[in-house]
């Protein structure tokens, strides 16, 4: 039996406490009023990002036509971010506000009306630039300033919620996919992985813990405590309201808060019940009952069916619902691929760790090799789905679909591109070598990059729709991640310590014990029984 060491338990609790404190801090420090938001915006304008400096030289051209200004931007591929709306701004003031981009349709009028746009527009056609600026549905009139500040306020208030939400979804998805992978191994009568069954079962223990928090989160969202889902806002379905959105109204049969919450509860409940039963029966199977083995097989078939439907729907409800105007057919599989790679990486990590502690006597290098093969293969599978989704939308370039990627490519360029490198190029080059795949050190390095890459992937799925340009990776994001990491460590190792690390009643156990990939030499292990 494995002993959950006090040190590790301490680490798990420390992570949870630090995470909880940091999350509380990020909630408390979020702006409460429009005035706060305006102050932050003004601050941001003065400490503007890189594009501010790039504009310093443009000020001389402030009087020249707006068209030129925008074209200049395009060449530099720098986003035009309009930080602040100042109703009457003199030309000399504009020179002082080096960060600001001044839009002028007519040179003469620039003293009265200097439009400060708020969003990046991917097609910098000067004539339409102002129209596109209003892509958030904001009026471009006198009250633009307040509208903009209110919009930014919502995004800033969303940030601690989103930070927590991304971390929670990440760990929920990963643990759920470990269960799905485990069930698939059962259904496929896989011989190699039986030595890893108890590791996978232990990881899925985390599902119960995260589900409880997720449930509370769903209820909080249902009670309008956050603005993560724009379609939940007041008046969206009311034709009399200024908030009325005919597109979302057309999706009302699916997108309405009561059924959204009910569906969420069904997914969570279903997954947890399946996990509980499978784990319980698997422990009982230590007595070697073959009838029980068949029984677990049937339950796993049922789980996989239930999972395939609910995973797709959950990804529509919880991730795609953040951008209610946008839809993609393969989104559910794409989310599945993201979590599946991460799940395999997590299994490999826990296996490597536990083996190094001597807790997994049956696991040899061939098992690690197989896990790394899965990590490699599903990294490519993820890239395939990611690219299939991106390229079809890029190719057809239909405006209602393209905005999704235009926003991400313009505002989230670094994470958006970094994620492709981290999730595809790096693992492919590192794990393509057969020898490397059985070296724990290589698998760990590759796995760290893969996990970080898929966290960023989820980040880029969620954040643009909830916090938009107000994103960052700060205390809130880090704390959310640390909290769920601590919870994960606690859940996994406490469950692993409760059971025999060898699933000794499984009829395929011997096959797993003697599992050997012909191409590799086991390091420092007895290899005579092959």
């Amino acid at each position: 039996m494995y002993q959950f060491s006090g040190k590790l338990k301490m680490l798990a609790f420390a992570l949870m406490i630090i995470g909880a404190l940091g999350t509380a801090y990020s909630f408390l420090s979020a702006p409460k009023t429009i005035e706060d938001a305006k102050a932050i915006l003004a601050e941001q304008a003065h400490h503007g990002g890189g594009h501010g400096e790039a504009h310093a030289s443009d000020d001389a051209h402030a009087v020249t036509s707006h068209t030129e200004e925008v074209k200049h931007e395009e060449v530099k591929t720098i986003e035009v971010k309009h930080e602040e709306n100042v109703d009457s701004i003199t030309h000399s003031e504009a020179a002082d506000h080096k960060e600001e981009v001044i839009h002028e349709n007519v040179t003469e009028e620039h003293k009265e009306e200097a439009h400060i746009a708020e969003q990046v527009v991917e097609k910098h056609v000067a004539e339409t630039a102002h129209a596109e600026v209003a892509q958030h549905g904001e009026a471009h009139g006198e009250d633009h300033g307040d509208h903009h500040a209110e919009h930014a306020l919502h995004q800033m208030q969303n940030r601690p919620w989103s930070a927590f939400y991304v971390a929670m979804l990440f760990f929920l998805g990963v643990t759920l996919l470990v269960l799905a992978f485990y069930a698939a191994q059962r259904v496929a009568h896989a011989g190699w992985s039986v030595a890893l069954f108890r590791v996978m079962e232990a990881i899925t223990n985390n599902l119960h813990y995260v589900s409880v928090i997720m449930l509370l989160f769903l209820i909080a969202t249902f009670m309008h405590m956050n603005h993560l889902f724009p379609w939940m806002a007041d008046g969206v379905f009311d034709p009399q309201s200024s908030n009325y959105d005919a597109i979302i109204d057309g999706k009302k049969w699916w997108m309405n808060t009561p059924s959204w919450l009910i569906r969420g509860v069904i997914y969570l409940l279903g997954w947890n019940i399946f996990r509980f039963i499978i784990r319980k029966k698997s422990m009982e199977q230590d007595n070697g009952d073959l009838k029980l083995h068949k029984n677990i097989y049937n339950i796993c078939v049922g789980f996989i069916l239930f999972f395939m439907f609910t995973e797709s729907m959950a990804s529509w409800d919880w991730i795609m619902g953040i951008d209610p105007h946008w839809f993609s057919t393969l989104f559910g599989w794409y989310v599945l691929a993201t979590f599946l790679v991460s799940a395999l990486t997590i299994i490999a990590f826990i296996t490597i760790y536990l083996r190094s502690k001597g807790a997994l006597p049956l696991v040899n290098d061939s098992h690690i090799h197989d896990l790394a093969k899965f990590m490699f293969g599903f990294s490519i599978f993820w890239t395939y789905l990611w690219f299939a989704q991106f390229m079809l939308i890029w190719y057809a370039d239909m405006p209602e679909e393209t905005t999704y990627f235009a926003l991400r490519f313009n505002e989230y360029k670094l994470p958006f591109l970094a994620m492709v490198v981290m999730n595809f190029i790096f693992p492919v080059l590192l794990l393509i070598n057969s020898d490397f795949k059985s070296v724990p050190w290589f698998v760990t390095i590759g796995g760290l990059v893969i996990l970080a890459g898929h966290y960023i992937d989820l980040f880029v799925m969620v954040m643009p729709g909830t916090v938009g340009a107000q994103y960052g990776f700060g205390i809130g994001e880090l704390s959310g991640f640390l909290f769920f990491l601590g919870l994960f460590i606690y859940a996994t190792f406490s469950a692993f310590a409760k059971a025999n690390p060898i699933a000794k009643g499984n009829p395929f156990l011997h096959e797993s014990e003697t599992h050997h990939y012909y191409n590799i030499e086991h390091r420092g292990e007895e290899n005579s029984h092959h």
Partner: protein
Amino acid sequence: MSTNKVIHALYNDDDILMDAVKKVKDAHHHIEEVFCPFPVHGLDKAMGLAPTRLAITAFFYGITGLSVAVWLTWYTMIADWPQDIGGKPNFSWATNMPAFVPILFELTVFFAAHLMVITFYMRSRLWPFKDAENPDPRTTDDHFLMEIPVHGNEDELKALLETTGAVEINVVDKH
């Protein structure tokens, strides 16, 4: 070498063959060749053969294919005649890159696969109208044959092979 004599030891089971190979290797005799009707797992390792480098060549062929595809798409679509086709951005290769990915992928696979196969044929000297080299037709059906060169130690070798369960031991002059 003065003599071209070899010993052909025939077996009718792959397990027995494996044990025989290990035994002969342990006695420090060089095994010239083993003929089998099907792949025997672990035989290469038992014989001490060096691992194949075919996969490494395939990797480089793949890179070659990728480069060819990059050049082809760049030259035809961007450099030579950058037409506006349906509004696709052809200012540079990078702006139109997503449209080229299917070609990049396919040519990478095409080059890697075909050149690797051709490499395999060349390295294993296989081509149409090539004369078959199997010393005994039974090795394509249900027998395994181990070939060991004789350097004046014919009797010693024969005695050793007798103990390994060979069903037939022949001394053959190789021409």
